[in-house]
């Protein structure tokens, strides 16, 4: 921790050009590394004393290709997102949303949910900050659902590992669910199910922070810090997720996958949601699993439902929100979002 603070204190002022030169250079190195993924991973796999086309060989190849690929993708995506998000803050977002009471407050909130940087550890003060500023409960929910649901990390990994078609489908439906669920929750008039102290709270005019002027170098530095922070946190989830993905890829017979997660089994969609909600991982951990499931013939609708419920509805987050929401409101929240996810799952299983 101490080294981290020193790191940040040191490069002020004249070192800006280091960022302007260093970031493009890092981009070029990134590009070269990314291009070498297949040859290098095949070479590493060939070092193991197993046949390449055996179960174990397939699993190892999946693992040694996916781990560096996901980590490289994450580095790139988190950096770009970190820089983009430096133009947004919860305070600005609140100011924008507080003025909007009309219907398109919902899609706007969902959009800002994707762009505003916030960590789940501050979702309680953020929730209170929004509600006390007069932002309707439903709009606040749209914001809170969209953030994790259509996070750039998940989208970027889907794009890189599964393909742009499914990434686009996921984006459109994730966004739609966040918007509609917020709208429905808003219509239900749930304000009375907030915890009592939240309803009575009147924060009044809140601390106006002086607007910070950031140079481009500052923003690049923010992006780099995000990479260090987020990768430091999620790499273990990535490794675990890819290990599971590798086992599925190598060992699970295709026929069994088709029976459990194929389009024929209608119950697979609700089952995917039931399994997905208590699973606590994040986009970085679940998408390698999704990649392996789809590769084995799992139905797209079922897989989407699984992925969405893992990412958007997590038990620990509900426990944090328990401080401000009554159990009843949390139950309604989970029910409404699950309905959206179920609908998406069924729709795709029927269409495809």
């Amino acid at each position, binding site marked *: 921790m*101490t080294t981290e603070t020193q790191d940040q*204190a040191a490069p002020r002022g004249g070192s800006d050009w280091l960022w302007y030169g260093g970031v493009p250079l890092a981009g070029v190195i990134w590009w070269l590394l990314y291009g070498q993924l297949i040859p290098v991973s095949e070479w590493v796999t060939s070092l193991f004393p197993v046949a390449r086309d055996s179960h174990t060989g397939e699993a190892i190849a999946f693992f040694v290709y996916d781990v560096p690929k996901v980590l490289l993708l994450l580095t790139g995506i988190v950096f770009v997102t970190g820089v983009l998000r430096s133009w947004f*803050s919860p305070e600005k977002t609140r100011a924008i949303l507080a003025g909007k009471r009309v219907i398109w407050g919902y899609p706007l909130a969902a959009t800002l949910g994707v762009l505003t940087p916030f960590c789940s*550890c501050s979702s309680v003060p953020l929730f209170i*900050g929004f509600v006390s500023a007069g932002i309707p409960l439903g709009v606040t929910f749209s914001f809170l659902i969209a953030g994790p649901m259509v996070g750039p990390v998940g989208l970027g990994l889907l794009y890189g590992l599964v393909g742009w078609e499914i990434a686009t489908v996921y984006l459109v439906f994730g966004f739609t669910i966040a918007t509609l669920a917020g709208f429905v929750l808003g219509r239900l008039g749930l304000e009375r199910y907030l915890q009592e102290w939240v309803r009575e*709270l009147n924060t009044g005019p809140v*601390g106006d*922070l*002086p607007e910070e002027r950031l140079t481009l170098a500052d923003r690049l530095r923010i992006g780099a810090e995000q990479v260090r922070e987020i990768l430091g946190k999620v790499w273990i989830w990535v490794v675990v997720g890819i290990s599971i993905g590798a086992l599925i890829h190598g060992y699970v017979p295709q026929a069994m996958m088709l029976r459990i997660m194929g389009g024929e089994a209608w119950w697979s969609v609700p089952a995917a949601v039931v399994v997905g909600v208590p699973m606590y991982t994040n986009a970085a951990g679940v998408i390698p699993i999704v990649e392996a499931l789809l590769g084995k013939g799992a139905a797209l609708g079922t897989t989407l439902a699984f992925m969405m419920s893992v990412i958007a509805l997590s038990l620990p987050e509900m426990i944090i929100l328990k401080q401000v929401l009554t159990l009843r409101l949390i139950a309604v929240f989970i029910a409404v979002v699950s309905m959206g996810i179920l609908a998406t799952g069924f729709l795709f299983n029927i269409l495809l």
Partner: protein
Amino acid sequence: MKTVKVYGPGCKRCEATEQMVRDAADRLGLEVAVEKVTDAKSIAMAGVMSTPGVAVDGKLVHAGGLPDAAKLDGWLTA
């Protein structure tokens, strides 16, 4: 003597921020009372939406992420 409040529910960065404040005060040879506020209600009442937040003598100066070391020195000496 200045009173510094660090607002945060107890995440890693909140603790790091508290430590930064203490270190900066030591380095500058200032006597500063550092108080950590972890209760969600008090955090919200202070107008903090992204944690950690920092207030000096009751005035909010920072919210979200680790504060910049140079600025921190500025708040403490102002």
